[in-house]
């Protein structure tokens, strides 16, 4: 019988400013945070140390002084393993890949229990300095970076194009930020929890036109640990879990921009990866109850939600303004508060999305609980959604 994977335990620190500047006398050490999280997640899952046979870490930021963080942590935990222990990297997709590769370890039979975990510390480095590195991650470092492109500049051009094609307004896009802040106000892990109004979103200073400060992600630090297990193991634990029902990946063979003109805002990779995941799960987009999208800007949430079929083409921004994607609406999206308010410690961002799905599908989301949440969707991406990784999870009691 084909093995199946279950998400059985999670832990995370609230996203925020955790990194200490070099000159501070007392430093926050990444491994001290991470060992506590491992202990907490494993307790949440109800498994023991000896059950864990594979660990997939997200690559730490270059600002993390301890190199080879993954194997260093194995020593801190005195954890002996026969599966795999590695760090993965895929830019914005990093944490989704960590989850995916940890699933693989179980599917391949190398482990019955595996961890997907990591830490992203960057907030003590100024935005202008951090962008000196991040500007080299999107586009062609010689032909695009030389012009001054930044990662979110590409999303801004999505927004310009979307407003042109569909007549969407700044207010409609801004309503995504308002909605997500409301969700974040109910999430103890969120970085920004004070509710905001549409007027406040619209009046923020421009960052990359037409997007203002509240349309783009804040910078922050985060760390999380997920415990995955074979469904067999999950069943023996007698606790609710989230079963991975479908998985899809697609890379469109371009990086940031296609020199052959295409429909840039169709997010074709997200559409195709979702189609594969839905097919595996034998569901359609209509069956999804809650979605945690990798969407660094308001416009990205709109475009991804359209591409994966949660809202119809050209209607994503309107749907946000009219409350369709809000808690209590037809299809709640980013119930965690999303990347704009829950926060976006980029290399671990998707770990937080799986944490939120685990909370929702295990009925533990408190005030944010989507009633009868049965099927959840998570996405990860590269570039301007040139590649997408999509997972469908199902609640199992």
């Amino acid at each position, binding site marked *: 019988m084909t093995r199946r994977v279950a998400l059985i335990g999670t832990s995370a620190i609230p996203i925020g400013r955790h990194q200490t500047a070099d000159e501070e006398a007392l430093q926050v050490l990444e491994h001290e945070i991470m060992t506590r999280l491992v202990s907490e997640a494993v307790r949440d899952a109800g498994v023991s140390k000896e059950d864990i046979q594979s660990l997939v870490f997200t690559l730490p930021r270059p600002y993390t002084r301890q190199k080879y963080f993954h194997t260093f942590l194995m020593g801190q935990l005195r954890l002996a393993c026969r599966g795999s222990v590695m760090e993965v990297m895929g830019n914005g997709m990093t944490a989704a890949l960590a989850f995916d590769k940890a699933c693989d370890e179980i599917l391949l039979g190398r482990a019955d229990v595996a961890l997907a975990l990591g830490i992203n510390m960057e907030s003590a480095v100024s*935005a*202008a*300095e951090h*962008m*000196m590195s*991040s*500007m080299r991650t999107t*586009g*062609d*470092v*010689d*032909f*695009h*970076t*030389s*012009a*001054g*492109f*930044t990662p979110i*500049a590409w999303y*801004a*051009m*999505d*927004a*310009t*194009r979307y407003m*042109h094609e569909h007549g969407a307004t700044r207010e409609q896009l801004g309503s995504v930020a308002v909605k997500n802040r409301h969700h974040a106000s109910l999430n103890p892990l969120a970085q920004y929890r004070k509710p905001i109004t549409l007027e406040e979103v619209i009046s923020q*200073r*421009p*960052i*990359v*036109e*037409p*997007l203002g400060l509240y349309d783009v992600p804040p910078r922050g630090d985060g760390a999380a640990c997920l415990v995955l297990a074979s469904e067999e193991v999950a069943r023996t634990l007698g606790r609710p879990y989230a079963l991975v029902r479908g998985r899809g990946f697609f890379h469109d063979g371009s990086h*940031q*921009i*296609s*020199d*052959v*003109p*295409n429909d*840039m805002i169709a997010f074709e990779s997200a559409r195709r990866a979702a189609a594969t995941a839905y097919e595996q799960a034998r569901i359609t987009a209509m069956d999804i109850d809650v979605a945690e999208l990798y969407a660094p800007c308001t416009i990205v949430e709109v475009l991804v939600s359209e591409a994966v079929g949660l809202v119809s083409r050209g209607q994503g921004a309107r749907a946000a303004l009219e409350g369709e994607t809000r808690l209590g609406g037809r299809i709640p999206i980013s119930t965690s508060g999303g990347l704009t308010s829950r926060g976006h410690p980029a290399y671990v961002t998707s770990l937080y999305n799986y944490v939120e799905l685990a909370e929702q599908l295990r009925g533990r989301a408190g005030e944010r609980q989507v009633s009868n949440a049965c099927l959840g969707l998570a996405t990860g991406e590269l570039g301007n959604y040139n590649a997408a990784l999509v997972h469908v999870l199902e609640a199992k009691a």
Partner: protein
Amino acid sequence: MTLEKLSLDSDRAYPPRESEFTKAFWSELGQGRWRTTRCTRCHRQTFPPKPVCPHCWSTDVEWTELGTRGTLYSWTRIHAAPAVFVAEAPYACGIVDLDGGIRLACRVVERDDIPLKVGQPVEMVVLQFRDGPLFAARPCA
């Protein structure tokens, strides 16, 4: 046909690297010549220029002229800039569909008399910095 050159009294903030292969592009650009590679097997142009055709993987490529005009597919104005670009901010960047079928992304030189909008006709220009050239688009009638 050569591109108009706009002289700037500064160095490029983040100069592109040049290779044995791409130095032809940059040195020609400095002369106002606007060229890229085309595959001699499948005859498709690509941009930026590449020594291997991304479509059919042939290594037989030749230098050909690029369209000098096009339309603005999208644009943004960047206010929050990386450290080396802070002095230039805010600045406009955009995506251009060139006549001839190539899509590219570049800096956009703004004109007071023509506001930036999707579908705006643009012409390619050379930004002649002290240390070398960059390419950019500029709205035109």
